[in-house]
């Protein structure tokens, strides 16, 4: 294992991260507040770590293999979460709470334990949104561009993507792709900010919410989230943007170049639209049937919550915890599914669901014709059996991890069954808001420390697609070849 190369890259990331932290630092300076230390110290720490790690290594010597790639990605994630907790910690929150908030931000979960947000300094609120934005960007970059470098097999594992080329290397060179994705992601954020501004938010509100929407995170700067604005226009803008953020970003780029037909031909995107529509209609009917809202409001509320859940954002427009159980169960199921690959969403992801559904259909056919050879294809391309095996195993592992997390939460956190299941599903899929205790993202503050730690681990496992983190615990991983 080429540990030095990994360290070097970690160092680079730390340096970039130090630069990134200058945003809230600048804001503090401009606002002329006496909060330099909260951001100044972490900047110094990051830069110092970065400088030490990058010293005296010739980066062009090594090549990244699968193992180094995995170590790099999971290490970097944990590393960023730790650096990102300092502003919270130095403001006076407990160690666990700060780490939780940071992990929740970087994994784009959006679960919050800070309690009353109104009393917090604005820089800290901005920092929360920034962690989500960077976490989201990191996920896209890692899963779309870094991963081909890590290797074919790992790529398939990470993204559930098809083939080697499937992460659809837009342009031959990786750095180019990275730049493009970065531009797309930033551009998307700007557009959302503008739309929110037009819908009636002020600039600070708009930029914070835009970052939370684009990264499918779910942090708001108000205690009551979007309900603070009580504006249909804003809710509508958020709804549309969340839906967009849950789609494959690479696909959008292709659509831009090749026309809208490309979007509609994509199997994954079609399932995404179909499932959103089906569950939206289910919930609409349920809400209307129980006469909770007028017909129009039922549709709007149902689709808002459906999209918010399937895109793993976790924004809430109404108190959905008071909805009938059928609607809540629909939302619970959607948490497992998640949005499309190639985006910032968590969960099992549409592409995997497509393949699993098709494979099951093929298995039924094979039961009738036992000697039949079946092939599975997605968007017109054949999926290799090796990949299918990987996906069914991922599914099994996902359900297993969910189960263990839920039962441990129930044990440690003294929660009811549904409450624990909700938290486990929401953290694993990086949704954030769940049911009962945590019906709003701020509800996480009521958990005890043990439950917070379990929730944190669940978030990390879910974000790193489980295998990436689990392989680190296999002894072979650390053996030299």
């Amino acid at each position, binding site marked *: 294992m080429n540990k030095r190369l990994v360290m070097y890259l970690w160092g680079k990331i730390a340096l970039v991260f130090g630069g990134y932290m200058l945003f809230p630092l600048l804001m503090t300076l401009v606002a002329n507040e006496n909060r330099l230390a909260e951001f100044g110290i972490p900047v110094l720490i990051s830069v110092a770590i970065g400088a030490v790690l990058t010293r005296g290594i010739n980066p062009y010597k090594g090549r990244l293999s*699968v*193992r180094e790639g*995995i170590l790099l990605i999971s290490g970097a994630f944990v590393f960023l979460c730790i650096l990102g907790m300092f502003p919270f910690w130095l403001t006076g929150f407990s160690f666990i709470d700060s780490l939780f908030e940071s992990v929740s931000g970087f994994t784009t979960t959006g679960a919050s334990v800070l309690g009353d947000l109104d009393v917090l300094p604005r820089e800290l609120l901005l920092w929360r949104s920034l962690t989500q934005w960077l976490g989201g960007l990191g996920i896209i970059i890692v899963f779309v561009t870094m991963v081909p470098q890590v*290797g*074919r*097999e*790992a790529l398939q*594992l990470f993204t559930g993507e098809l083939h080697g080329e499937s992460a659809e290397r837009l342009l031959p060179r990786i750095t180019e792709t990275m730049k493009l994705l970065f531009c797309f992601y930033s551009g998307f954020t700007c557009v959302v900010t503008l739309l929110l501004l037009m819908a009636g938010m002020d600039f600070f509100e708009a930029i914070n919410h835009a970052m939370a929407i684009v990264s499918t995170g779910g942090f708001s700067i108000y205690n009551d989230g979007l309900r603070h604005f009580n504006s249909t226009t804003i809710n509508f803008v958020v709804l549309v943007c969340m839906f967009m953020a849950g789609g494959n970003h690479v696909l959008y780029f292709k659509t831009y170049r090749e026309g809208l037909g490309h979007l509609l031909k994509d199997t994954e995107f079609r399932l995404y639209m179909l499932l959103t529509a089906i569950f939206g209609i289910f919930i609409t009917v*349920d809400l209307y049937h129980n006469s909770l809202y007028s017909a129009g409001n039922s549709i709007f509320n149902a689709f808002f919550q459906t999209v918010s859940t399937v895109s793993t954002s976790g924004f809430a427009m109404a108190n959905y915890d008071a909805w*009938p*159980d*059928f609607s*809540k*169960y*629909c939302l*619970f*199921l959607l948490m497992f599914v998640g949005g499309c690959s190639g985006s910032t969403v968590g969960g099992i992801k549409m592409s995997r669901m497509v393949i*699993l*559904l098709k*494979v*099951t259909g093929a*298995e*039924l*056919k094979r*039961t*009738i*014709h*036992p000697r039949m050879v079946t092939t599975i294809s997605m968007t017109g391309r054949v999926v290799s*059996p090796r990949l*299918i*095996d*990987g996906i*069914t*195993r991922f*599914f*099994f*592992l996902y*359900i*297993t991890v969910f*189960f263990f997390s*839920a*039962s441990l939460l*129930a*044990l440690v956190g003294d*929660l*009811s*069954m*549904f409450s*624990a299941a909700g938290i486990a599903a929401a953290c694993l899929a990086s949704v954030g808001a769940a049911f009962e205790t945590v019906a709003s993202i701020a509800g996480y503050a009521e958990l005890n420390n043990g439950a917070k730690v379990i929730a944190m681990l669940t978030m990390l496992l879910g974000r790193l697609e489980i*295998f990436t983190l*689990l*392989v680190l615990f*296999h002894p*072979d*991983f650390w053996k030299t070849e």
Partner: protein
Amino acid sequence: MNLLIVSYLLGKLSLACAGALLVPLIMALCLGDTCLKALLISVLLATVIGYAFLYYGSFDDGHITFREGVAVVSGAWLVISFLGAMPYYFAGTLDFISAIFESISGFTTTGATTITAIEAVPKSMLFWRSMTHWMGGIGIVVLFIAFLPNIGSGAVHMFNAEVTGPTDDRVVPRIRETSVALCKIYIIFTAIEAILLFFAGMSFYDCINHAFSTIATGGFSTYDNGVMHYNSPLIEGIIGFFMILAGGNFALYFSVGKKGIKELWHDTEFKAYIFLVIITTILIAVNIFCKMDFTGTEALRHSFFQVASIISTTGFVSNDFDVWPAFSKYILILLMFIGACAGSTAGGIKVSRIVILCKLTLAEIRHTVHPSMVTNVSMNGKHVPDTVIAGIGRFFFLYMMLFAGLTLSLASTGLSVTDSIGAIAATISSVGPALGVAGATSTYASITPFGKTVICVAMLLGRLELFTLLVLIRPEFWRSTRNW
């Protein structure tokens, strides 16, 4: 598809069912039960339907392929469930849907009941209830193959469509002899348990009923509060032991009979099964000991009995586990999903599938570290073929999908989330008592007719391991193969 032969076999089965119904009929005659008329009508109905099927069908072109096998098994379960429901319906004990529910619950060895006052039901009717368990446990088609004249080589397809587990393991080369061997073990176990229960203090009638119910991993009792009625550690111990025994692979017991007891410890699945029982018993015992006011032995006693009852998918209740802490309930739900060993009378995903899935996951992790490594998975020292492995992954996914879909349908009737999850988890794996409304000390009577239909589907799907029933909805199943 050769519908004639399917019809012929279904006719024979209906007649066999009429024969089975004679047992409670004679009982009712001797005891002077009020349900005599209902049983008589049921016997006549079964006979008429049987002859109608026989009249339509024929056995001349007697070749049973895979399709006919599946059709016979699925058809048999539907017909028998219908015929088995008739006594409850004609006696006025239950309405039509509930009667069907009770019958399916009996034959699939679920043990979920809609009868709220069991002790008020005539004894002969309760005996029929336990009999449905006993016949469904080993498999009605397996019983049929074992007891009725040879139906030729095609029996293997029927056998495979009904017997549980990812692979078919026959104990002897010929399928009829395998069936006979399995039935022998089944009968011996039932007899031993009945005798032990008799000596432990049960009445003759009760011990037969409970032995039927235990060995079939069903869960029907002759009392409203089931095993709690006796409040006897000895009876709980005997039933607990036999529940675990019934959850083991019957084919394995056959080879134990031939080669000695050490065979048990060569079997990966059985070892995993026993290990699971021990671990979960300890976890739950500690959990309920800490969170509730049980003494140490009480905690261990109830925890062991409940674990044995749930993992073997029997569903007897010695203590209301609905009020246990959430963690214990989670463990019980987990056990519901896992179920017991392949080739047993239990439901659920089965321990062998879970073992293989866990091994595959480990292999996948190893594969990530060494991308060009070739990994293979073995059970009992034998390599598991790739098609079996692929099938298991898909089975798991399908199981979860159907579970989610059925739960959603049940939740649409207004049941709470936890209750719907519990009810479907308990019935798709043929356990019986669930959480909340349909909890340990409650019944399924309060669920709406639509909800009951959903649960009936869940029970049949779970018992026949999904694919047997699901292939029926595929159009190519019904298409003729002649034009190939």
